[in-house]
Every structure is written in C-alpha cells, then in structure tokens.
C-alpha cells in the first residue's frame, strides 16, 4: 500500500522564557493508506504536539513532512490552510462544533473554506453524511440540542465531508461514557474498513485496541510501534448506526 503520510526526523522545539523545550525530538513515521493508527503516550510525551504538526496546525522546527505527496513542512500559512481543507479531517475531544450552526451547516464548513460553490449537491452530501452517522432526523438541530455522542458523530461527518486523505482524531472518546465511546469507535472502524486512513491520539488501551497499529511515545520520541493483529471490530450490544449503502457511496467517493 502506498504511504499517504511520511515524516522524517521531525522535531519541534519551543522556547519558553529562554528555556528550550524539546516537545518532539526527531520522529520518523510512515502511515500507509487505509491504516488506523493509535498514537499513545503519557501527558508531556509530545503526542499532542506531533498531532498538531501532522494536522498542519503547527510548523516543525526541523525535519520533513510529506502529506499526499506534498512537502508541507515549509509551507506558508495560507498554503497550510489549503492543505487542511483538502487533505485533512479533524475530530476533537470537545467536538468543537459551532454553536450558531445547525448540524448540516456544521458539516458544510470545510467545503466553505475549500472555495467550493455551495449547491444542492453539496448540501445533499452533507445530509447524506449526517444520515451515515445516524443523525438524519436531526438535520436542523443546533449542537446544544444534541448529546455528546451525537455531537461527536456530527464532528465525524464534518471530518469526512471534504473526503480527506487522513482523519486526525484527538482523543475522540475522551469526553464520552464507555457505551457511547464504543459507538464512536465502531463508527471510526467502519470508516477505516471503507478505506479511510485514521490517526487517533488516545491514552486508553481499550480505545487503542480498535486500531490496527499502536505507536507509543515518550519524551518526544517513539518508544514502540506495534501492529495490532486482531483489532476490536465490534462490541456486543453496541448498536450499529452505520447504513451500509451510505458507507458504500462514501467508498465510491474515495475511489473517484
């Protein structure tokens, strides 16, 4: 499988009050298309910084970063915005939906910044994604009217709307109870099955067990990088919210 993301000797050094803090000290990592990577490590291990670097929200002090064949390590701010809007999907711990927007409008945001013309077809795609994550009957709801799990599902739909090369999830289940967590992880693993590349930061082993590959970090370097031969695929009792035909239409989108 082709690699979709490749970092070579990536480093990030902050200077805090004239003290240099080495948050990430030369990390080399290659992620293949269709992989599901869990990034683990205790707090302060540099995993969040690495995720920010991977998400093009931050620029590395040193090293190289290739995303979908492009060298993004030295890009300008506007170019990075472009990369984010075309190749990356974000899922956050706090869902980060815009409170003023409805479900559909929230899903639509990344398209807005792609400079795409908003039309009926883009709206339909957003509605389709909302249905995919099981919120087809809450299209006009505001985030405040949804539960945490539902909000996170909206966020997942939003991360899919621009058909990204990589989905970056920062502790997607951190604010959810275990049952809802399972639903979310089930959704993510289904997306992965459909061909989506996912990189997920977590510090919970049960959550990491859903991933195909577990990368552990400590003190800014990779401590271990293990393939998980038998990832969790479903949990008993967790209701599947995914509709197969919608998922297939998403896969079709991916291949196109």
């Amino acid at each position, binding site marked *: 499988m082709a690699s979709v993301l490749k970092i070579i000797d990536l480093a990030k050094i902050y200077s805090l009050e004239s003290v240099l803090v080495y948050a990430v000290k030369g990390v080399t990592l290659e992620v293949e298309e269709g992989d599901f990577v869990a990034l683990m490590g205790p707090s302060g291990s540099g995993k969040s910084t690495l995720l*920010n670097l991977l*998400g093009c*929200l*931050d620029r590395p002090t040193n090293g190289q970063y290739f995303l979908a064949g492009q060298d993004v390590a030295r890009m300008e*701010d*506007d170019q990075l*915005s*472009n990369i*984010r*809007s*075309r190749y990356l999907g*974000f899922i*956050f711990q706090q869902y*980060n*939906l*815009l409170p*003023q*927007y409805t479900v559909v409008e929230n899903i639509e*945001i*990344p398209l*807005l*910044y*792609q*400079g*795409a*013309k*908003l039309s009926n077809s883009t709206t339909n795609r957003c509605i389709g994604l909302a249905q995919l994550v099981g919120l087809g009957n809450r299209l006009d709801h505001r985030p405040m009217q949804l539960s945490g799990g539902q909000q996170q599902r909206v966020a997942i739909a*939003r991360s899919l709307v*621009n058909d990204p090369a990589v989905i970056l999830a920062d502790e997607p289940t951190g604010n959810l109870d275990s049952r809802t967590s399972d639903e979310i992880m089930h959704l993510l693993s289904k997306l992965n099955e459909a061909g989506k590349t996912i990189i997920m930061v977590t510090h919970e082993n049960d959550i990491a067990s859903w991933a195909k590959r577990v990368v552990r970090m400590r003190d800014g370097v990779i401590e271990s990088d293990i393939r998980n031969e038998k990832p969790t695929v479903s949990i008993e009792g967790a209701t599947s919210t995914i509709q197969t035909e919608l998922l297939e239409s998403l896969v079709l989108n991916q291949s196109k």
Partner: protein
Amino acid sequence: MLIFSITAILMLASLFACILIWDKGRRSFILAVRSLWLHRLRAFLSVLGIIIGTGAVISLMAFGEGSMQDALEDIRRLGANNIMVRSVKPTDDAGSSKRSYIAIYGLTYTDFDKIATIPTVTRMVPMRIFPQEVRRGYKGVNSRIVSTIPDYLDIHNIEMKSGRFLVADDEVLLRNVAVLGSELANRLFPFEDPIDKEVQLGTFFYKIIGVMKERSQGGVSTEDVNLDVVIPIATARVRFGERIFMRSAGSRSAEKVEISQITLTVSDTEKVRPTGEIIRSILENHGKADWTVNVPLDRLEEAERAKERYKMLLVLIASISLLVGGIGIMNIMLATVTERTREIGIRRALGAKRRDITLQFLIEAVVQTSVGGILGIVLGLAMVYALPFFAETFWDARIPAKVHFESITWSLTTAVAVGIVFGIYPSRRAALMDPIEALRHV
C-alpha cells in the same frame, strides 16, 4: 451631490450584493445576523452610539434645511432679480436742513431718470409711501398710502381678491382711485363689498376699484402691508404733493420726499450685483446717506452660505458621534473576538485562511453598523415627522422640516465606513491568532 448619493447607494448595494453572491460572504452574513440576534441587547447597546448619531444628523439636517428654506423663501419672495432702492431719513440732519422745518431728503425723479438709463434694468416701480388716515364716514383707520404704478402688482406678486389693480390710464388721467389691503377693507367695510364705494384720503374722495388678497409680511417691514391703500403715483403727486406734515407730541415736522422707494428688476441674475453697484455710484452724488440699496440676492447668498456653515457644523457633530459609536463597535468586536477565540481556532483547523477570518469579523462589524445606521435613519425620520406634528397639535408652533435625501445616503455610507474602519483591528487580531492556542481556549 445627487450624483454622489447615487454613487454611494450603488457602491453600498454592490458591496452587499458581492457579499451575498459569494458563498463564504453569505455564510458570514447569515452568521453575523444570527450572532447579532443571539446577543440582541448587547448588539443594540453597542450600536446605540451610531443609532443616536445617525438619528441626530438626519433630524437636525431636516430641521435645519426646513428653516433655511423658509428663510430663503422669504428672500425669494422679494425677488432674486430685484433691487430695492429706498429713501432714508439721514440720522444727522443738522447740516442738511439748516433751520428749516422741512427735511428734504431721499430719492428724486432725477435719480429715477438716471437709473432708468441703465440698460440692464428692465422694469422700475417707484413708490411714494406715507402715513395717512383713511376715512369712510365717521370711521377712520390709520393707514399707509402706497402710491405707485401698475407694475407694482407683478413685482410684489400681489393677487387680487376682487376688482382690479391700477392700470396705465389711472396714472395718465390722474384718477382718484384706490386699491385696499385686505385688512383695511375688512375694517372699513365689514359687512359690504367695498368695490365702487368711496373712501376719503386727505381732502379728496377715492373710488375703490379693487381689494388685494391677504399676503404675508415677508419679514422686511414692520407695518402691516394688509392695511395699505394703493393709489396712482401721479394722482398722489398732484393731490398730496411731496411735502408731508407730521404731528407728533407737541411739535410739527415736515419732510419732502419725492420717491420713497424704487423697486427695479434686472434682466439677468448675474447682472444684479453690477447694476446695484452702478446705482450706488449714481446715488453717491447726493452727498449724504439718505438712501439705501438693498439687493435681496446678497442676502440670498448670505443665507446659503449660512446654510453651508450649518451643514459643516452638523458634519462635525456627526463625525464626533460616529467616532464615539465606532469606538463602541470596536470595543464590542474585541470582546466578541475574545469570546469566540475557540470558534476561530475551529475554523482555522477546518481550512479557513487568515483573510477568511478577517472578512468574517469585518462583515459582522459592517452588518452591525449598517443595522445601526438604518435604525438611526428610522429614528431620525420618526423625529422629523413626529416633532412638527406634536409641535403643531400641542404648542401651535410650526417647525419646518425637510428630509434631505443626501443626509440619508451620507449617514448610511458613513455607518458602513465606520464598521470597516473600526472593525479592521479586531478582525485582524482574530485572524492573527495561533490556531493551536485558539483551539485550546475555553
């Protein structure tokens, strides 16, 4: 100025059209309206400065314009193409009249003939005006005789209530005819039609040939013009002569004045002032200040200059209030940006460029100030229509008001401009935030 208004409106319209056609712009616009609606009270308070400023400008401009136009109308009634030359009693007549009883001063028929030679003068109306009691039987009214020629009718825009005005034959045949002012007619003939009746002026009887319609004072003379009686000037010259005796508080005085006033019309507005100068130079020969030349056009232009000054003052007041309003907007925008730091982070993560963020907040500021501007215009117009109404119904006072279209476009343009100017800094600040920091913000 109309062109300016139209351009301004077109520019504003195209600005909003661009925002609305463009997807991101429309989204920002809708978002702006929504978040303003979400914080209705706060948004209202923050644009209150602009609302009051705009309202004040619109209404003050309308009231100023209204009273100015009233004043200009008064002057125009005198005629912009007219020049009034009047006789005045010299203040220091010790040298001029020696020890005689008779004060001789004022315009003469010689002056009249000299002025008549000026080619730009198209019409001259001489008047001899003096106080005289008008009698009808036992009734007497202290009135004023205005002896003049038929052209007086046109030059003073007099309308007849009944009968006719003087005609040329009245002058030639020295007829004893009189035209009464409306008030004078009311007093002398309260219950009957005065036409063809007679009144006594001095020692002779005059046939009444017409009654003039009531007219307003025009702000020049202190006498009630509706108490005037008009007779042919030739008749007056023969019957009364030029010497007028006046009794006052135990002493008698007399004065000899040939013509009290000449109202003349100039062919062209541009030639009014040079003609006035020529008349002045002719009258300089009197050697004493027993005349005045009054050019209404001068006052007209003076009034217009005053109007301009008033307008400048208003613009200054408006600028100050809009500055204050703008600072209010900036303050609230900075608060909004801080409050929505996280939203900025989310948008940046999802692919928004810095300029997208700048524009979003800028649009929000402009929407806010535009709404403020529109509310201000509504407030101003409400005041313009309500205040004169209340003044009329409760105090019986007249407040002239005229809404200036220009003031509306001007204040709307300024409101938008204030939004842009005072929105730029907060918007830039929002755009320059570090996305990671912004996302971490609670």
